[in-house]
């Protein structure tokens, strides 16, 4: 008798669950400020980059934001960025400056009780922004150009000592700078990582 009863309960449960499921499939969140709709599927692109530290496990305790030095500079707190990803408002965060305000100090990753990595999610958003050609800070583009050109992020800089002498690397009794053996194949490989044929 009790088995039958629990069976019927679970049937009802399944029915309710299915109703919720069908509602949630057609349900779309709308940002009332911008009238923009969320796109659930777009969050998958973040997940494919962050690996197993899933934004979906976040229960919004905001411990990440409480230790974040960028909180003073951010319009959104790290837990809110994670929330935006969960809700599918990806385009909004990607086109906003906030994803470029993380210093990648990784306190949020260290302290998250749910093994979510807000900083990694932010890096994933930056990757998507870069891929889509949404504004990437000029400094990053310059770094990529320099790596293509020389293998290093910047050219060899002259420096000034405290007593006002100017030195370049060769003045300082240091070994010659390392050179890449085959620049052509290095560039070919780099281009391949970016999905471009050289």
């Amino acid at each position, binding site marked *: 008798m009790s088995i039958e009863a629990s069976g019927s309960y679970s049937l009802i449960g399944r029915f309710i669950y299915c109703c919720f499921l069908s509602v949630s499939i057609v349900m779309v969140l709308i940002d009332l400020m911008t009238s923009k709709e969320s796109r659930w599927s777009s969050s998958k692109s973040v997940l494919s980059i962050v690996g197993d530290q899933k934004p979906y496990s976040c229960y919004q305790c905001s411990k990440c934001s409480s230790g974040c030095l960028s909180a003073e500079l951010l319009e959104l707190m790290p837990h809110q960025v994670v929330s935006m990803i969960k809700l599918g408002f990806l385009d909004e965060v990607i086109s906003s400056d906030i994803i470029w305000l993380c210093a990648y100090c990784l*306190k949020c990753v260290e302290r998250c009780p749910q093994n979510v990595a807000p900083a990694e999610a932010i*890096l994933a958003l930056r990757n998507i922004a870069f891929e889509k050609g949404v504004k990437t800070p000029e400094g990053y583009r310059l770094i990529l150009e320099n790596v293509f050109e020389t293998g290093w*992020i*910047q050219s*060899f800089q002259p420096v000034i*000592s*405290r007593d006002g002498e100017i030195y370049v*690397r060769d003045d300082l009794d240091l070994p010659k700078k390392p050179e890449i053996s085959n620049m052509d194949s290095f560039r070919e490989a*780099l281009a391949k*990582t970016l999905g471009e044929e050289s």
Partner: protein
Amino acid sequence: MHLTYGFYPGCVILTEQYAYEIAARNVLPLLDVKLVDLNNISCCGEPLMSMNKTTWLYLAARNMAIAERNGLDVVCLCNACYLSFSKAKKLLKEDLGLLEKINSILSIEGLKYTGESRVKHLVEVLHDDVGVDRIREKIRFKLAGLKLASYTGCHLLRPSSIVKVDDPENPSKLNRLVEALEASSPHYPEELECCGAGLLIPKPDGGLSYASTQLKAVFNRGFDGVVTVCPACHKMLDGKQAAINQTLGLNVELPVIYYIQLLGLAMGLSVRDVGLHLNQSPCDKLVAKVRWNG
């Protein structure tokens, strides 16, 4: 005991933080640590994490593959390079599909990544391999009376699932290394905070604001100087100190010195031998406080 490492200085040291490289090349051999220069190396990929995950992984694996070909473990001087390599190693170990993809790209240059070479940061080499006792034996001048703020830097501590140099919330290895020179190195509340170097590319003003928080706190707590182990932290606290003072109307005059420079001085090397003339912060103040007659 002889230790041999493939030497990976990284972009920032090779192209502007020359003092760190000068000091490392002059001091480490005196502690029987042999540095082998690696040909063909390139950027560790860390800044590329923000643009393309595959490009970052390729660059990190590329340098590791070069070390493997030479049969060497790697010593990094830079925290960011250390994190980049450690993170890539973990990822390539766990995701064989990714490993295959990266190796197929590496094959263009005739390279292959297997994960054989270990990666260490200078702090690990000094603390774990050379050892505090041996450093104590080697010093000629005691830095007694100096109170120094040990600033380990984010990427040697976090995330502890990837980098395992020290306790992520209560680091002490750098403190012990400083104390081996007879200087004191008490803990302070801001020692885990970020220097802001990661913001220099996307938001320079924000980066300076981070660094000023750190500088003000250490200065106001009466430290004689800051001891760094990362070229990015050093660049922010040492190289940008004047700019921070000017921009924010501060009057912080705080010597900032690499640990390896400090160690070299204590071992009897000259200011030029450890590249101290290249530090931008008032390091003469620090040097003047030590009794150099033993």
